[in-house]
């Protein structure tokens, strides 16, 4: 029974090890990508088969509820798109292709565990499984920039995880347990912020540690450098799946352990509200000046972390809004994930040809690659939050949740930020459509890349035009609370 509940994760772990072995056996390396995608599809299938079960596994450390399964599907789908987009890229990695796919699968496994765990030790282990795989992937190319990205990610990531462990130790010390249910039982008996300085300090350390994963200000310094230097498919994966995993863990931990005591949840709700406002403003304002498209999207991903944090703030400030805010966060993560993956896939296709990530080199791209330009323009419009795209619906939906919790000022900040963001997103579109191309040579792109771009663009359009189908699913998602 327990093995069936852990099916999605175990399947991926097995495939991750098998793909390394397979790498030794086959000459035709394209098989490895197919093999990994089969594993991911199997994992999605296992998650869908489990949909609706509320299982508890491994001594109550893991919960397999709809919330966890939704994220399982999200991570696996993102990994499939990333692997499709990597097929050209991995040609450059002579001899290490098996490891590349294996690390992506292991990172995905870690994220899936992050979404379903409710115990501090296993949260730490699964977070590190994800992070360590991603450190290696960020430095995978071994050229100067990629190594620099890997080193910066590793050093800052390790410091943040040390802070996280220290916070967990303090929370454990004040509550006497590492299980979120045990922590909540202890928190229930406490009252007042001034009387529990150690617990508050622990919570602040937790915010710092998790804040690094989701890239909130002031823990965002690593984002632009790592995003620019890492191989672009890895950047796409970092910006989508790693961020979503961070939010999955934060929402569960903060609601289950600290969310039902108003004296405590009001404070962290306000903390997240303030961080959200600062994060989106910093992300959007600094993005204006960027000349490199990967750095531009790095700052844009910081800004989007700010928007999503509005949902966390809404949960903290008004517990009754949990259902709406959680659904808003899930929908936003799905919409943002598809959109950002689409944008990065288009960028990968373009830079495979031009070898450049500078926005200036996108001049007149529409005449050299009409379909890629259309895809990139469409996803950028979705990132701005204009109809008929996923980004538009996701923003309205999440802003509404924040409004219901009485966060009018934060919604105003969010709307103003969306206006700022329109400037730099649409500037890229303008460069592509109105600029004079440097050459008239047509761009070529591989089949898998085109499939991935088409799939994500249709996903974005689908979520934008028929959002109700997905919102019905996200609204039915609950997490099992002890």
């Amino acid at each position, binding site marked *: 029974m327990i093995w069936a509940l852990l099916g999605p994760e175990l399947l991926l772990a097995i495939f991750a090890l098998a793909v390394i072995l397979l790498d030794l056996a086959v000459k035709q390396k394209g098989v490895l990508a197919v093999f990994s995608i089969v594993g991911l599809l199997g994992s999605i299938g296992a998650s869908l088969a489990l949909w609706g079960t509320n299982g508890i596994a491994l001594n109550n450390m893991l919960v397999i509820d709809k919330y966890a399964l939704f994220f399982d599907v999200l991570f696996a789908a993102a990994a499939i798109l990333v692997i499709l987009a990597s097929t050209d890229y991995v040609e450059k990695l002579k001899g290490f292709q098996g490891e590349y796919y294996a690390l992506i699968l292991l990172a995905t496994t870690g994220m899936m565990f992050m979404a379903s765990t409710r115990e501090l*030790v296993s949260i*730490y282990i699964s977070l*590190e499984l994800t992070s360590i795989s991603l450190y*290696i992937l960020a*430095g995978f190319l071994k050229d100067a920039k990629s190594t620099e990205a890997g*080193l910066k990610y590793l*050093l800052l990531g390790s*410091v943040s995880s040390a802070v996280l462990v220290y916070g967990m130790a303090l929370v*454990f010390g004040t509550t006497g*347990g590492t299980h979120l249910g045990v922590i909540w039982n202890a928190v229930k008996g406490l009252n007042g912020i001034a009387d529990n300085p150690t617990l508050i300090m622990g919570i602040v350390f937790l915010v710092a540690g998790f804040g690094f994963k989701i890239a909130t200000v002031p823990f965002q310094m690593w984002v632009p450098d790592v995003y620019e230097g890492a191989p672009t498919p890895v950047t796409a994966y970092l910006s989508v799946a790693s961020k979503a995993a961070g939010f999955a863990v934060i929402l569960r931990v903060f609601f289950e352990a600290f969310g039902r005591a108003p004296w405590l949840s009001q404070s962290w709700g306000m903390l997240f509200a303030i961080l959200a406002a600062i994060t989106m403003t910093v992300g959007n304002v600094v993005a204006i000046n960027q000349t490199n498209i990967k750095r531009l999207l790095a700052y844009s991903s910081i800004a989007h972390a700010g928007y999503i944090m509005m949902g966390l703030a809404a949960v903290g400030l008004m517990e009754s809004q949990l259902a709406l805010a959680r659904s808003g966060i899930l929908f936003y993560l799905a919409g943002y994930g598809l959109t950002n993956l689409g944008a990065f896939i288009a960028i990968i296709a373009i830079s495979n040809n031009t070898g450049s990530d500078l926005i200036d080199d996108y001049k007149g791209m529409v005449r050299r690659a009409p379909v890629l330009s259309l895809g990139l323009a469409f996803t950028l419009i979705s990132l701005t939050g204009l109809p008929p795209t996923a980004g538009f619906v996701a923003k309205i939906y999440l802003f509404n949740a924040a409004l219901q919790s009485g966060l009018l000022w934060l919604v105003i900040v969010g709307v103003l930020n969306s206006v700022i963001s329109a400037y730099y997103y649409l500037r890229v579109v303008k460069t592509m459509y109105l600029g004079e191309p440097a050459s008239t040579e047509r761009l070529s792109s591989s089949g898998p890349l085109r499939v991935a771009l088409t799939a994500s663009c249709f996903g974005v359009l689908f979520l934008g035009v028929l959002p109700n189908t997905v919102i019905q699913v996200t609204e039915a998602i609950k997490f099992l609370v002890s």
Partner: protein
Amino acid sequence: MVGLQHYIILSAVLFCIGLYGALAKRNAVIILMSIEIMLNAANVALVAFSRYVTPQLLTGQIFAVFVMTVAAAEVAVGLAIIIALYRQKEKVDVGEVDLMKW
């Protein structure tokens, strides 16, 4: 008599030393060592809390064992990346790792 607060003060001091080293030092290997100190500060706190707050359970000790294991994995990857850096620059000074700036 040595009590819980002594261990916690020790761990807080260790944590601060580690954090200072991680932020102020320029040699990548020393930064990794500082991070180890921070993790071990957390271990001291975990074990002390486990002994004094929940003496009948072993949760804290087990957590500390896991932290050590993960730290070893982290350092292994860290040293590999530092070696890759050394092959390019013949140095492990993080001040020189500055291709990308905002």
